[in-house]
Every structure is written in structure tokens, then in C-alpha cells.
């Protein structure tokens, strides 16, 4: 154990900050947009794969329940799952069209009941960015190879 005990009220975050004793950086990503794709339960992985194939870095999937076309398909409505998966993919604006098209085709969204997708512009985003990538664009300190 260290000799000096941190005060009890200090949070983990602050403690870490103090121990590193260094400035911390946050790099905002601009020119990002969010592609949201809603498909039937079980098909989310296809969507994620299609998005990654087109260059998306990752995706978030959550479960939901939807309605709409199902009620208008008559007897075949039973073939459409009520339970849905919502796939959120954050991409660069220049990637947006390629990813969008690829996801649309992979999800067969041109068939009624298969799903719905849209793009939302995002103001800014932030996440982990590898230091060497940052350095390449003149941000941050030089990384020893």
C-alpha cells in the first residue's frame, strides 16, 4: 500500500487522474452520421456483417417490438416477427452511402415486412482513437514506433 491514503470522498475517476498526473485528451470526431436499421429478431447479425463489410467499425444492437406492415400482409403477416432488432451503426459521412446501400441489400429491405432504415446526422462523437492514427493527422504527441 502507498503511504498516502486518498481521501475517502475522492472518486475512482479523479484518483486515476491524480495518479497519472497528466492532462487527458478528448478528441471529437466530426462528419459522422448514424445509420439505424430495424429488422426482425435474429437478422441483426446479417445487418452488422453487411455494415462491417462496407467499412463500418462497429454496431450496437438492441431489442424492440414493432408494428406496421405486418398487419397489412394478411395471412402472411404471421411470417413477420413482431420482435425486432434495432441496429445502430455510426459511420463517416463519406462512407454513409456505401454502408447504407450494402445494408439495404443484405437485409432485403425491398421486401415488405423485412425492415426499415434511416440516417441521422450527428453533431459530434468521441471514442478511443489509436494514437498513431491521431498522430498521422497532426494531433497528439509523437508515438515511439
Amino acid at each position: 500500500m502507498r503511504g498516502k491514503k486518498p481521501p475517502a470522498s475522492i472518486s475512482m475517476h479523479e484518483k486515476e487522474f491524480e495518479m497519472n498526473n497528466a492532462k487527458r485528451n478528448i478528441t471529437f470526431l466530426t462528419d459522422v452520421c448514424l445509420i439505424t436499421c430495424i429488422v426482425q429478431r435474429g437478422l441483426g447479425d446479417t445487418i452488422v456483417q453487411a455494415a462491417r463489410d462496407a467499412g463500418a467499425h462497429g454496431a450496437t444492437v438492441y431489442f424492440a417490438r414493432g408494428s406496421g406492415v405486418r398487419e397489412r400482409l394478411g395471412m402472411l403477416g404471421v411470417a413477420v416477427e413482431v420482435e425486432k432488432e434495432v441496429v445502430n451503426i455510426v459511420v463517416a459521412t463519406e462512407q454513409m452511402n456505401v454502408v447504407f446501400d450494402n445494408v439495404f441489400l443484405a437485409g432485403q429491405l425491398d421486401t415488405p415486412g423485412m425492415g426499415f432504415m434511416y440516417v441521422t446526422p450527428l453533431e459530434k462523437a468521441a471514442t478511443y482513437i489509436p494514437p498513431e492514427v491521431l498522430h498521422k493527422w497532426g494531433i497528439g504527441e509523437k508515438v515511439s514506433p
Partner: protein
Amino acid sequence: MPSIRYGQYLRDTTLVAQSISYNKLAPGITRDTQGKIIPYVAQRIRLQGVDIYRLLKNYTKDRFLEQVKAVLPLAIYMSLFQIFILNRIVEPALSITFGMIGVIIGLMLFIEGLMQGLMPFGETIGNLLPKKSSLPSVLMIAFLLGVGVTFAEPAIGALKTAGQIVSVEKAPYLFALLNDWSGALVLMVGGGVGLAAVLGTLRFLYDWSLKPLIYLSVIPALLVTLYALNDPELEKILGLAWDCGGVTTGPVTVPLVLALGIGIASSAGKGNTKLSGFGIVTLASLFPVIGVMALAIYVRETVPVATILAAANPVATPVGDLPWHETSPGSDIVLGMRAILPLVAFLMLVLRVMLREKIANAGVVTYGIILTLLGMCIFNLGLTHGLSSLGAQTGGLLPGAFTHIPAMEESPLYLYLLGLMIVLLFSWLLGFGATLAEPALNALGVTVENLTQGVFKKQALIRSVSLGVAFGMAIGVAKIIFDLALAHLLIPAYLLALVLTHFSTEEFVNIGWDSAGVTTGPITVPLVLSIGLGVGGAVGVVEGFGILAVASICPIISVLSMGLLAKYRAGRNAREEAACVDIHA
């Protein structure tokens, strides 16, 4: 020279992109004379061939693969074992293959039909019934529903098949129960399930502890077993009675009874405890034992052996031209209809006459009921020609590994001890594999992990249940081979389980006792029953029941002991931590 990827080229030339404003597509609002909005009704969508194909492909693929995953590994395992270890090809291969496909498709249709057709009934009735009727009539409906679902349980057909193999001379009362009295038998099992549904509902309402209910149902069942031990004729029925418990806890009973119970509890504003869903499975597998034994004692007291033999003789002689509804395709379909239609009629009656309600989405429900019917008939066909046939065949050849059997001229294939080991190992692996693959067990594992805040890991539960079933299967097969008395195995095992129950916490009692019911699905039950009867027939013992019974109690013991162990470890860790704190302070 600029280069372009071929994929990009294809996309650019085939994907035609245009835009249209949503404003043009959105429907305009129409108002009536008072200025209120008239609700907009969307038009039906016209589907093209390719769309129908895509929708149906998605719809069927997962449901089909789910059943394939359950059936195929077992079928392959048994066929390979028979070919390479027992040196016998599976025959008639074509008919068994078609039977297996029947089982897969039948089960797929049946489960989907259940979800679309019967579950909405259960939920609607569960929600509405307590609001419109008094508690006694609610319990009455729960009881009748319990009886109805037992008839609709797909594995119950396996009992009928099993009855045809039992020899009337060796075990007249067992034969009588499975043939002449088979209706009454299923009714008694159903009565047991009905009683379990009533008690389960009351448990939902009043948050009873499961422990006293277990004592109250296990002790009478053991007493009946002890009584039967004194009577050589009744003793032969014990295996059947205890096996019936496993048959009842299948894909129809558990969800429907639970749906009713949850509906009743939630409309009473109770049943929020996490454990209230458990327990019904346990009770539904214990009460039928008492019911079946009661029926057996009644038949034993009233019908002399001579009557049974006389009644059985015309059946025993093969008659060339049976009516269509008693030979294979016809009888399977009749059996399927008889299983589903009464349940549907009963649910309809309750809904329309007692509740005066219409079912929402009548079209979908009708579709579901038709699927259930179709699935049950196809499943029964597959059961007769595929699953039971394969099980009986492998079971019949198994003893050839260590002893001489008439069906196999070159038997025994191996030295006595080696052959015996092979047979027991086969049963062990069959139990282990079949349980490990059971999807219901996986679901239970997730629940358990949440309930115990991660103390009892999902994998730990799956492993301990699978090990329990594996040892249970091996012991069960050994019981048949050595013709051990089932009571001598079951009574100590259940007493041990009772002792463990006494020391376990409420959570583990619920989980442990229910884990046994989870493992006896619609594929395992017929397979295990027919293997048991096959082995029994080959070594010439009176009856081949009892494997399921032993395979049900073993996981209870293993899960309860695992629970106690986990509790002990958690307690020790807590003490150690406390000790550490003391030192540092």
C-alpha cells in the same frame, strides 16, 4: 488507367437509386362533420412471388433448424453407435429417415402452432378469468386445463406405442393399463397435472414456499411405492407410474399452465416474486405417480388376471384387415386429432360461454390451431416410424454387446465386462448429450444466474443437470439389464433429495426440483422410453420402464448438492473476507 472494383461496377449498374418525398406517400387526413379525425386504415399490400419466398424462407429457416439441431445429433449418434459398435445397419433406413424428418417437421409446425394458436387462449383466459369468476371456478378451470393439456402433450403418444411391446402374459396389469385402460391412464396422469395446476395457481396467489408442497407430494408417492413393493403385480407398474411424471412436463403443459397462472396472479396484483414461475413442473411430475398407482391398485382389486388375458388374446393374434383408424397412418392421425381438438374445444368453451369474450385475431389463431393439428399428426407419424423405431432397434441390439440375444447370432460381440461398460457408457453419453443440447435448459440457466446474482453460473447448472441425467440414464439402463427393483433405487434417492431439500435455500429447491422436468422434452422421452423397452425385451425382463424416472431424480440431487456446495463456498469466502478485514484493521 483508373481501376474500379467489379462489385462496385455491378452495384452502380444494377442498383437504381431515386428519391421521393415522404410527404407524397403519407396519407391525407379525412375529418368527419364534427371535425374529428376518421382513423386511417392502411390498404393491404400486394406481394410478389419473390417477396413471399423471402418472407417464408426467413420464417421457416430458424424454426426448422432449431428442431434439426435437437433431432439430428441424437439420430446420428445412435446410428453411428449401432453401425460401428454393434455392427448392425439401421433398417429400414429409408422409413426411419422419413420418420425423423417427420419428427422434425411435425415438431416445428406444432411448436409454431402452439405459439400462434393456443398461447393467446391461455393468456386471454388467464387475464380475464379471475376478474369475471370466483376463485373456486378459476381453480376448476385450471384443473380441467391441466387435464386437457396432458392429452395434447406430444410425448403421451409414446406411451401408447410402448404399450404394444409389453407382453400380456408376463405383466398382465401393465398390459391392461397401457391398452384397455390407456384412456383412464392418461386421465389419471391428467388429473395429477390438473391438481398440480391448481396448487401452482394457489402458490402464485399466496406466495407459498415450495418445500412443504414437495414433502406433501413426495411422501405419499413414496408410501404408494412401498405399498406396491409388497405386491408382485403392482411392482411391475411402478416403472410406468414414475415415468409418466416425465412425460407430462413437455412443451404444451408448462407454457399453457404457466400462462394461466401468471395471468391469474397478475390480475390479483400478486406473484411478483421471481420464483413464482417455478414449482408447477415439479408438482406436475409427482402427482401423476400417485394417480397412476391409484388406478393400478383399483384395476388390481377389481379385474382378475383371467379377464385381461381373455381380452388381450384377440388383440395378440395379428389380424390382416384392421380398420383404417387402427393401422399406422390412420391411427396416428386419429391420435393427433384426439389430442388437440378436445383442448381447443375446452378453451373455446371457457372463453365464449364463461367469459363471453371473442378471441382477438381469429384468423391467426385458426391458423395456429391448424398448424398444431397438422404438426401433431406428422409428429405422431414420425414418432412411430422414426424415433420409436430407431430407439427400440438400438435398445434391442444393445444387450448383444455383452450377452447372447436371439436377434444377433454372433453375439456376444465383446467380453461380458467390456460389453457392459460400452452399453453403460452409451447410455451415459446419450443422457449427457441430449440434456446439454436441450434449449429449455439453457433458458433455465440464464434465469438461475440472474436469480442467484451470479453465484450459480449458467454453465454450472447445465453441467450439473447434464451429469445428473447422464448418470440417471446409465443407472436406469443398468436397472433394466439386471432387473433391479425400481423402488429400491427411487426410495433412497428421493429420501436423499428430501434431506437435501430440507437444508437448501428456497431458490435452490425451486431450481433443483424443476430442472428435472426441463430435460424431458418431446424428443428425449419417446427415445428413452423405446430404448428402455428394447433393452428390456432383448434381455427378457418383464418391463423396460423406469429409465426416465431415474434420469429425473438424479439431476435433482446433483443440482441441490451443487447449490449447497455453492452456499458453503460463499459462506466460507465471506468468513475469509471478514478475517482479512480483521487482520488489516
